[in-house]
């Protein structure tokens, strides 16, 4: 953080907002490269992807911060709920720590207009960040997480299967693998009908090992599909380090195999993510085919639920579910938390004079309240009717109850 503060306090940067932003970004890009990555891919791309965010309007930038905060507080509220409210039935694969990835990517997309117009995103078993960044209704989403009849998917989905077609959020997927293949199918349809939409697939580092990863990349490259694969490399697939399933340091290297650009970005920095996404989106819209983006990031909670977490505190510590795995040294969690996506975004916007500290704090308070209200609304929603379980198997009618003999 010290580097960044030094960078934006420099006199020259105070002269005009855009000059200030550019210099700041240069400093940031350099710092990012030095801190985290030294790979061929990252170095090759650094200059190219560094300069989109500065063109965004203040409103757009503020919106990004707002999205990051929404994801953060939605999740923190649910962590606390899981830990303290025994009536709460939802379970969660928390996204906290990775907010900048969903936010930066979705900021480069068109998020209105349904499947025929919006850009489409395919999510994972860890969907809340993607859904919020795409613009889903937090109230309805919270209700779905607790299986309420008025939830986003009427209580049929639960966390791992939420979807919201109206904004191009094609859905969470409880499976590791098939999602990206299906996403390329959407991209194929889009290209065939001559639409300018693009399709983004979010996948964890764990997806690298699946045959589906390779199938999606290969076919997207062969057919030059408007497809972007965003790997959120949070270092672990479930309880195993990604190096147990990927022999390379950077998963983005795989892109070379398919003749596709591979980009490594600092997933903690929303501007870096946005820049990479924007470049990929432009490419896809121009008919130049797919991109593989690997965002280096980290989740502050465990794979599933909130073991090791304490109410009101950020992150989970000291929990080794299997006592035999190499899962997450506590020091590693703390180290990543010093490069927090909320702080990085906040400091960038303050550094760019888009907002000041007072405004940032006020935004945080307002969003906290918005989320609390949404979860309180969800809490009051009706439960599902048991017999409705027989509905929605097909578009019409319901299937027979067979449990009574």
């Amino acid at each position, binding site marked *: 953080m010290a580097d960044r503060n030094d960078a934006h306090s420099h006199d020259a940067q105070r002269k005009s907002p855009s000059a200030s932003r550019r210099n700041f970004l240069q400093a940031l890009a350099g710092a990012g490269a030095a801190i985290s990555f030294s790979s061929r891919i990252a170095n090759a791309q650094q200059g190219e992807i560094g300069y989109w965010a500065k063109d965004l309007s203040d409103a757009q930038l503020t919106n990004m911060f707002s999205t990051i905060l929404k994801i953060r507080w939605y999740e923190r509220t649910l962590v606390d709920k899981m830990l303290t409210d025994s009536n709460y039935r939802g379970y969660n694969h928390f996204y906290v720590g990775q907010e900048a990835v969903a936010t930066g990517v979705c900021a480069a997309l068109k998020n209105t207009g349904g499947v025929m117009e919006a850009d489409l995103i395919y999510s994972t078993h860890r969907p809340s960040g993607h859904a919020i960044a795409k613009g889903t209704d937090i109230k309805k989403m919270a209700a779905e997480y607790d*299986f309420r009849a008025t939830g986003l998917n009427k209580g049929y989905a639960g966390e791992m299967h939420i979807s919201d077609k109206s904004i191009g959020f094609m859905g969470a997927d409880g499976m590791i693998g098939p999602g990206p293949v299906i996403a390329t199918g959407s991209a194929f349809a889009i290209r065939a009908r001559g639409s300018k939409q693009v399709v983004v697939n979010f996948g964890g580092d764990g997806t690298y090992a699946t*045959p589906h990863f390779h199938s999606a990349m290969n076919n997207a490259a062969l057919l030059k599909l408007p497809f972007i694969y965003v790997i959120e490399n949070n270092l672990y697939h479930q309880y195993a380090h990604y190096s147990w399933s990927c022999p390379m340091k950077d998963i983005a290297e795989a892109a070379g195999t398919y003749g596709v650009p591979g980009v490594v970005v600092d997933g903690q920095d929303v501007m870096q993510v946005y820049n990479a996404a924007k470049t990929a989106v432009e490419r896809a819209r121009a008919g130049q085919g797919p991109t593989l983006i690997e965002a280096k990031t980290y989740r502050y909670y465990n794979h599933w639920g909130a073991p090791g977490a304490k109410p009101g505190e950020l992150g989970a510590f000291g929990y080794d579910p299997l006592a035999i795995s190499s899962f997450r040294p506590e020091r590693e969690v703390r180290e990543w938390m010093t490069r927090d996506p909320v702080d990085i975004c906040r400091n960038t916007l303050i550094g760019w004079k888009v907002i000041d500290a007072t405004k940032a704090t006020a935004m945080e308070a307002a969003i906290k309240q918005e989320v609390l209200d949404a979860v309180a609304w969800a809490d009051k929603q009706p439960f599902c*009717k048991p017999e*409705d379980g027989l509905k929605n198997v097909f578009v019409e009618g319901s299937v027979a109850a*067979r449990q009574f003999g």
Partner: protein
Amino acid sequence: MARKSFMYSVLEAVQYEMRQDKNMIWIFELTPPVASNPGRPVINLETEFGRLRVANTGIDENWMAGCVLGAGLAGSKALTYIPYQGACMPFQMIQNHAGKLRSMTGGDAAMPVVFIMEMTGQTAGFAGQHSDYEIDTYYAHIPGVKTVIPSTPADAKGMMASAIRDPDPVVFLYAAGLRELVEEVPDEQYLTPLNKAVVRTTGSDLTIVSSGAGMPDVLDATEKLQKAGMKVEAIDLRCLKPMDTETLVKSVQKTKRLLTFDQSYYTLCPGAEVIARVAENVDGAKYKRIAFPDAPPPAAPEMFNWMRPNADHIIAAAKRLVS
């Protein structure tokens, strides 16, 4: 003899065989082969046999199934543990390769391999992709693979030992809902046949047939029905393929009433096969089957728990059949 959990019993059988056979291997992706039991040593195949023989891989169930198949063809016994989320990913590998290679090679190919398939379906709220039911039927339909589904820790140990020693591929369906079951299980290695059902209670009024995760409800209902004076013969299939037709037919010849119960989708559930086999051999019997509706499991517990067949459903159906 000691009280042991389901997975402890399974791993005890595997550990014994791996100690005897230095070539035997185990592949897993996220469920390490570890089990503990109060007062006994922890079984950890990964630390005991090392990473050359017990490998933790990336998320690719298709590869895992293919890997053990290839190992088997190359002359090594091999097992893989497929978690419930991936239980259908290797379907093609098992259906078109494991199931056909012996036949296609004129009897030459030997595949001493075991595919342990974790099955869920027990947990409300997991929803759609995470609480599937029907994989017992899918795998039981494949010629050339034996498909077994033990419902007790003692059977699980004996059937695992038999599965490993069997020169043919075995799909070992592990109903995750039985994870917490504990019972007396012998310490020594023993073999339980892979083609025999077991009669859990004898009776002359009604035959109830189930398997795997359905058995606890059947035993619960049977106890209540027996107390109410109904003489129930409860049969645990244990093996879906080959299916022990003889035990089923013998029972229904006596009771003339057959109720099947499955934690599986109604259409083509194991009970459908049971009824068909009995109907071919017994005249004048009455039949009823209980199963999960032909619907993906919805997330909300209200819907899911209402749809999931339970002991009360068995009791009500049994009374209707016998009255």
